[in-house]
């Protein structure tokens, strides 16, 4: 594993240093400059391009977690003002730093609406096997299925959900309280659907309607689409 993609702590005491920017002006300046450099780069995801403030915050998160800043930028998304990690990233962090022996594994059973996925791991200290099961019934009941990915890649979504749940239960310190992107999206879709009964549309004119739309939360999936639909660098138009 090369240094650039290994998720290893850069040093053993990153947490102490990571708050220094609050009291040390030079430290703040420096991180701000690094943030600006990243924001100007085309190698960071589009939602960080031209946004030094967001890069600054993401760099804080990277320092807190002790991971390579570029890796953090690649894997942090912002949904409705809440930063989250891609589930994949969260899982790899837990696999490398969590209390488990070996990586998180999954088993699934059933199909369609009966699909259930179990994420499993063994706690190194006790040898206890721990698991979390998430199924489509739960996804429907919780309103997550409004996210079309539960139709297109249901098993993958349930794997992400069960694993992040497992991480949250057994090694919350790995994510330091941050959510996964997928959880945030699901919460956002749920909030959107729950809004239904609370604020009925009162729009006699189009202006009223547009005002309400302007006030509404941005759609859940926007950020994901940006990160996932980015063309590969092999696209000729992007290189030249």
């Amino acid at each position, binding site marked *: 594993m090369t240094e650039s993609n290994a998720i290893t702590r850069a040093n053993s005491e990153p947490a102490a240093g990571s708050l220094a920017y609050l009291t040390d002006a030079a430290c703040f300046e420096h991180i701000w400059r690094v943030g600006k450099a990243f924001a100007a780069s085309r190698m960071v995801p589009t939602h960080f391009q031209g946004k030094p403030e967001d890069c600054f915050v993401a760099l804080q998160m990277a320092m807190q977690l002790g991971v390579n800043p570029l890796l953090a930028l690649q894997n942090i998304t912002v949904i409705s003002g809440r930063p989250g990690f891609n589930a994949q990233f969260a899982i790899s962090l837990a696999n490398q730093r969590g209390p488990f022996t070996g990586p998180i594994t999954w088993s699934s059973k059933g199909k369609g609406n009966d699909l259930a996925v179990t994420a499993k791991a063994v706690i190194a200290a006790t040898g206890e096997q721990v698991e979390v099961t998430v199924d489509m019934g739960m996804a429907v009941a919780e309103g997550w299925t409004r996210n079309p990915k539960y*139709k297109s890649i249901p098993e993958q979504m349930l794997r992400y959900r069960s694993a992040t749940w497992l991480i949250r239960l057994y090694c919350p310190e790995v994510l330091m309280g941050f959510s996964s992107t997928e959880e945030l999206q699901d919460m956002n879709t749920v909030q959107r*659907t729950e809004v239904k009964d609370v604020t*009925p549309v009162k729009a006699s004119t189009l202006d009223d309607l547009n005002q309400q739309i302007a006030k509404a939360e941005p759609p859940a999936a926007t950020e994901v689409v940006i990160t996932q639909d980015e063309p590969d660098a092999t696209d000729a138009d992007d290189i030249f």
Partner: protein
Amino acid sequence: MDIAAYHADPAVSKSHLDQIARSPLHYWSRYVDPNRELIEPTPAMRLGSALHCLVLEPELFDGQFITAPAVDRRTKAGKAEWDAFTAEAGNRTVLSVDERAQISRMAEQVWCHKAAAYLLSQDGKAEQTIKWQDPETGLECKCRPDWMINSGQILVDLKTTEDASPAGFQRSMASYRYHVQAAHYTRGVRHGIAADAEQFIFICVEKKPPYAVAVYASTQLVISAGARIADRDLLRLAECRANKTWPSYSDQIETIDLPKWIND
């Protein structure tokens, strides 16, 4: 009422109006001819209904659509797999892997559009059949709004299109007579469920990447122009039914001019 029952109901839909507008014979051949053949859905129609289901009634999707596996049916194993698939598919509509991916992308983009996502997140009902009697002609009419917010206050229609730009969608409105639909549906909720539709809104999603989405609200002019045409069509249909004559185009030589829009 499910979609098949809706189509089988002889009440006058917007598609009925389209046919009678073309010619009474076209209407007769599609809806009256006792020997008429059932219309096979075209790939575009299949795509449209799959997208509607995925966006508006995702919980019904797996029961109605299934994605075909990519197998080589010339090999024995491939054929066996295909036969197993056909058995599993039952009477569900089969989508190709590409079509399935395409509608997922389209649905995703609809949910990514701020206004579209807002409208679809409101308290609403999908695919409700509404029936009423046209007060002028006495004809039994029907419509089925894609998405009805606040019991008919706002009607939302999802359209797939090649070009969702304002000019592009204007052309679609003219070709597919969406103004007639807006008027017919607005009347439907008025007479059928005593609701006053204040907006008729189109969510337009392009069929090709980047699957751009635009949302348009019909102006009053659209509705009133559509209503005039709907009236004319309904009247013509009522006459044809009364006289039991279903003429086609003129049987004389007619002159033909350039269309109005090319005159300047």
